[in-house]
């Protein structure tokens, strides 16, 4: 245990900034997860495996000289198709939320082994021209990969929010989530919409995965490291909400990195889970459905 001491103002603001960046990634990861849970009633643990698979693909493509951001053009459609295919299977068997959790856990195990057999269990780090790019604002360092993540997280949350709120398809999705048979009676093609939505969620996972590849070293076991804190962000932010996971993710990211600055890094996991437990118990109406 490291002793408790007030860090300098500079250290504190720098850690808040890094909290914002990692929190944006929590939010980006949680966006697709929460949409799937809230609107499709499927809890997709494989969301994290998708993200890592995309991260490794990005790593592999970068090895071949393809820019990580350009590789999105290939990765996003691919994962859209994978997500839609998975949903097709789950819809066919009419899984309950809990069965979907178990099934996608099994899928996560398969993807983890797949990654491990292709890329081994060792850590891999994506080398890209963004890696060393950063600029300075006053005393603060702003690294470019982190900034890309933040921009993507905010931009995608805004896009999803706008689609859900202002388009017919978005309204139909929300109606179908509320009451599928009634929505169908009003002419909503619930099956087609949910395939699109599931594909979108997986595509969002792949974008988050590319950001993971930009920011962190990759190892198959790391898939599980994200589950707890991202679920915390989703439940804090509200299921099926576009902005919720991002806001909650930022909150978690900042409180984690401030905790790290104040005490020792090893206490950080306690922050998000304690927040989650408190919110679940004190304001259970907000979290979950």
């Amino acid at each position: 245990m490291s002793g408790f001491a007030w860090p300098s103002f500079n250290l504190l603001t720098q850690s808040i900034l890094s909290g914002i960046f990692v929190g944006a990634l929590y939010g980006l990861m949680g966006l697709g997860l929460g949409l799937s849970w809230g609107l499709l009633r499927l809890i997709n643990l494989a969301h994290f495996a998708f993200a890592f698979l995309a991260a490794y693909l990005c790593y592999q493509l970068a090895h071949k000289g393809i820019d990580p951001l350009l590789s999105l053009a290939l990765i996003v459609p691919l994962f859209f198709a994978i997500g839609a295919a998975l949903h097709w299977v789950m819809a066919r068997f009419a899984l309950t939320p809990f069965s979907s959790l178990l099934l996608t856990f099994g899928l996560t195990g398969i993807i983890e082994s797949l990654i491990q057999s292709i890329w081994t269990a060792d850590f891999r780090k994506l080398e890209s021209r963004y890696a060393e790019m950063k600029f300075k604002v006053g005393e603060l360092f702003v690294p470019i990969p982190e900034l890309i993540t933040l921009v993507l997280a905010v931009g995608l949350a805004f896009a999803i929010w706008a689609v859900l709120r202002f388009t017919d398809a978005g309204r139909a999705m929300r109606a179908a989530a509320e009451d599928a048979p009634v929505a169908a009676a009003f002419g909503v093609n619930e099956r087609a919409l949910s395939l699109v939505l599931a594909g979108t969620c997986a595509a969002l996972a792949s974008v988050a995965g590319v950001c993971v590849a930009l920011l962190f070293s990759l190892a198959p076991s790391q898939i599980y490291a994200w589950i707890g804190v991202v679920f915390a962000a989703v439940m804090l932010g509200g299921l099926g909400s576009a902005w919720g996971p991002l806001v909650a993710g930022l909150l978690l990211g900042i409180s984690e990195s401030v905790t790290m600055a104040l005490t020792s890094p090893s206490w950080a996991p306690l922050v998000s889970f304690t927040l989650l437990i408190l919110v679940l118990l004190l304001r259970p109406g907000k979290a979950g459905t």
Partner: protein
Amino acid sequence: MKVTPIAIVVVGALLATMPWLGLPPFYDSFLYLVLSWVVLATSWNILSGYAGYFSFGHGAFFGAGLYTTTTLAAKFNWPFLWTLPAAAGVAALLGLGLGAVVFRVKRVRGELFALLTLAVTFVLATIVLNTPIDGGPGVYLNSVPVPPIGPTQAGTFYLLALGAAVGTLLIAWTIVRSKFGAGLFAIHDDEDAAEVLGVPTYGYKLGALAISAGLAGVAGGIHALFISYVTASEVFSITVPLTVVLMSVLGGTRHWAGPAVGAAVITVLLYSFTAADYAVAGKAMMGAVLIATILFMPDGILLRVLRLFGYGRRPPPVARSQDVMGSAAHREAVPKEAPALTTEVPVVVDLAAADSVVVAAMPSPASAATRAAAPITSRGSSDVLLRAHGLSKSFKGVKALAGVDVEVRAGEILGLLGPNGSGKSTFINVVSGHFAASGGRVTFEGREIGDLSAHRIAQSGISRTYQIPRPFAHLSVLENVAIAAMFGGATLSARAATDEARRWLQFTGLEDKATARPDELNLHQRKFLELARALASRPRLVLLDEVLCGLTPSEIDGAVALIRRIRDQGATIVFVEHVMRAVMALTDRVVVFNHGQLLAEGVASDVMKRPDVMTAYLGRAHA
């Protein structure tokens, strides 16, 4: 009689000879792992399989036990065997503490409970890692002596795990066969309905979690010395909860032996992959097995196999009916008329306007009323059985009940009328304890019941039906009714409750549906199942919430006759209904609610002629 526990012990004793057969120590260690997983999976299933509260926090309890043993043995030099009860105790206390908080919040069910327990695992890991319990580098147990139970060290661990496995399986079997188990299965299907039938859901969940955690703690304690080098990241990894879930789901969560079967299958499969240097493929295989199980065998291997051999559709959580009928000790509890009646045709259905025939064909009401053991007749000192005084209930500002005073007199049928949304169902929900009142008092037989939880109210002699029937979907019709007899006012043993349940199935004409599942019944039969459940606890007050709604005219006639016979047995009835014909025929008195307030009270034929009542029902034009 009790073949299963004897078989468990005999098999255990036979397996206990294994270390002396002189096999290579590898076998001891491998079987140790199998048995350790049997303990973990079976203990997980006690809460998560039976009561349906899927926990991803089993690793926390396993880890709590493991670190308890580690700390006591390595730092305080306790003898190893003495640390095991402590490991169980610490893990059980952790379970109790977690449950005491989590189970108070109604919404933390299903997926939320699963994820919350997962979070607890990580919180515990962080604490262990950052305190002197571990501190980061891990703890060595090399210097802790292994007690000389078996001929070798590996043999000792094998025997310890065997003992734990036999004990865990015996506990699991006992729970499945007990009233406790029946209550847990009821919670699994419909927790609210279980509570209203008298199941102390909070206490039962807490008990199940404590037992489950304690057993996992023992497994953890043994495992600490087995691995002899303990690190937090290994102990609190996601592996334990997920493997345990996989094993139980694969084997079958509704059978006491299901998780054990799953544990054996998975451990053997995993080992064969690891041994052949395909550990990675092993993980993928586990995933594939899990997916295949969820999609194609949601009930698990064990039940699938049992069904193949014709062992019925599933094991009864409640005592089997054959056992009951063959048991001399309980035969006297069955009214003499009942067995003779089993040959009669079910008469309630479709007997329009033939009340007298129905009554004659049913078990004589007198036989029930004269039975001293189960006084269904009210013996209150005053004439008033239930009194609601200024009862109110608000939902986020909407006043569903705005201070009503209602008296229910012993022995009457009181009709509770009013337009939709007038507060009738809310009244029933508040009186039965389903909702807590926002204000006012309710007394039953002179005792204040407003503050009691729903299961206490049920046990004190009030039962209810739901407007939309809420049977326990995975239990048979007979078991559904037996739950009510076990936990309601009469609180019978599991055996006697089955007898009692049969009686009430006869009474409602459902006896030939006893082994059916609720989803095989039509609406009319499900309504009668709801009635049978409400009556099986021998309540002195029955609250009927629109039992006739959705029935055909001839079915209504049958139901009206049935309700009259319930009253003839001495029960008092509050009857919420829109079918006016039935109200006129049945009620002694009616009260009319409107906008959550009492509008009128009196004899039905008079009250319904009053202009204000007609206005409330039909709108102003008719006034």
